[in-house]
């Protein structure tokens, strides 16, 4: 603090708490302030699923998982209402004709709620 000079013990404690505030530190979905850095948001980005990235050659052939795998990340593991149907309530059978995403992805149809 630059302008207020604390002159009792309570004021010193306030100064310490103000000095500890770092309002440049903007983070999404953070847990507790002052927690471990970098902040690890919760949700699907917690698991590393190579998805629409490209491999070292600029293509998708060498990825460790097929790009189509992302569909399942959103469909099954994520709570977020993304642009795929939800498998809990409305479209439990949406992916039943798609055994292997790389081969059968064409069987995934649109859903009209």
């Amino acid at each position: 603090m630059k302008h207020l000079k604390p002159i009792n013990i309570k004021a010193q404690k306030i100064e310490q708490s103000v000095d500890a505030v770092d309002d440049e530190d903007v983070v999404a979905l953070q847990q507790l302030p002052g927690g471990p850095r970098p902040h690890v948001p919760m949700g699907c980005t917690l698991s590393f699923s190579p998805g629409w990235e490209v491999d070292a050659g600029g293509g998708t052939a060498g990825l460790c998982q097929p790009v189509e795998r992302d569909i399942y990340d959103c469909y099954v593991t994520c709570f977020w209402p993304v642009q795929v149907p939800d498998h809990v309530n409305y479209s439990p059978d949406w992916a039943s004709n798609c055994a292997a995403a790389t081969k059968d992805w064409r069987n995934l149809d649109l859903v009209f709620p």
Partner: protein
Amino acid sequence: MTVMLSQRYKRGELHEFQAADNGFIYLVSAGAIFALDEVTKSVLELLEHGEMDHADLVGALVAAGNDPVDAEGLVRELRLVGVIHSKEIIPARAPAGPPMDYPLQALVLNVTNQCNLACTYCYEFGSDKIATPQGKPKYMTLETAKASIDFLLESSGNREAVHVTFFGGETLMNFKLLREVVGYANVQAAGQGRKITFSLTTNGTLLTDEIIDFLSDNAIGVTVSMDGPAELQDKRRVYKSGKGSYAVIEPRLRALIARHKTRAVTARVTLTDGVTDVIRIYRHLKDDIGFHEVGFAPVTASDNQDYSLGDNGMETVLDGFHALSEEWLEYALRGQMHGFTNVSETIGELISGTNKSHPCGAGLGLLGVSPSGDLSPCHRFTDADTHTLGNLETGLDQAKREDFLSRGHVGAKYECQTCWARPLCAGGCHHEAFVRYGDTGHANLHYCDWIRDWTDTCLKIYGTIAARNPGFLEHFAKRKGLS
């Protein structure tokens, strides 16, 4: 997308004061004290008459010659501390259930409800009495006293040190018990690796060299209730025959002060109608008799008692307080201790930044025990059936205690919510409130102006010392009032 956030600022809850040519604020929400610089003062002036937009406030600061980055930084600093705020601050409400497991710190043992004096203003025996001692034991038995010590040690959690105050009636009418229980308490506390300290309040009439030596050997703090030189003392501190007590106590007090080497010996003066010459009383007790400290309090009285302090009396008292506090400050700037307790106690609370939920520890860290073993919020409620909080045998009555503490919480006192002095006052003495208003949870409205004036005086003393002799304040950092 850019979201524009427009904050409108107003002043937080502050009490501003000047001391030693500096500006200070007392931050009411916290009990914190800050010294101000010029630019902060200018912000408070800008907000004196209402709210201001963030941009306008920063703009005004820049127009006054401040660097824009600094101006933003200042506004941020003041906002984070709570000196200015942009949202409605909703005062904390009284908790539905105050802490029930709060560890006990002190017990006041009323070792007897008998007294050899008949002071006319006595809250225990006078016309405002609330005690109902009929049919109850007059003297505490050793058994009850020992049970009290056990209760204190059991109920005090992990505290390293606990305190026992012996009280009456006239405490020394049961000195025999006092002597035995001190020995018992020391053994019990030592067995648990803990410390127990003692103090007592007496009218001084029964002090003997033998008693004084015992008090000194056991480091028992002594407070003498007394009103000043003979003429003032004998006005109301009298025997049942009406005879004054000054001549009896004077030689005993001189012996007490000469022989008691281990603790400060304090006088506690009750101010009543005609007993308002604070300076004369102080000089006599401090300089002539030799007390280490002298504290003053106006008598507790309902309206229309002949001993009550009227408004004129109160003014005279305040003038005396101000004169003595100036003297206190002169001493402090020279690094010397002055014996005017009322300032010392308040400075002790100001340095830590006390922000009270309740006016005192009664019912919280402190309880009174009557000769019969009844528990009460403090010694002033001893033997009053309507205020009993259980008994040593049956334990603390948590429902009654909760009622007492909920009522007494500062958040439950409507008038206190707009008062800047509430962190220290919290509405004032529960007993005084009961005598005046019939409710322990009523704010002591008859003292509000006086309390604010006194708190302001002590803040100015505090600010002056902080500016000119800050090291001196360290003496008070550990001071703990147990009166």
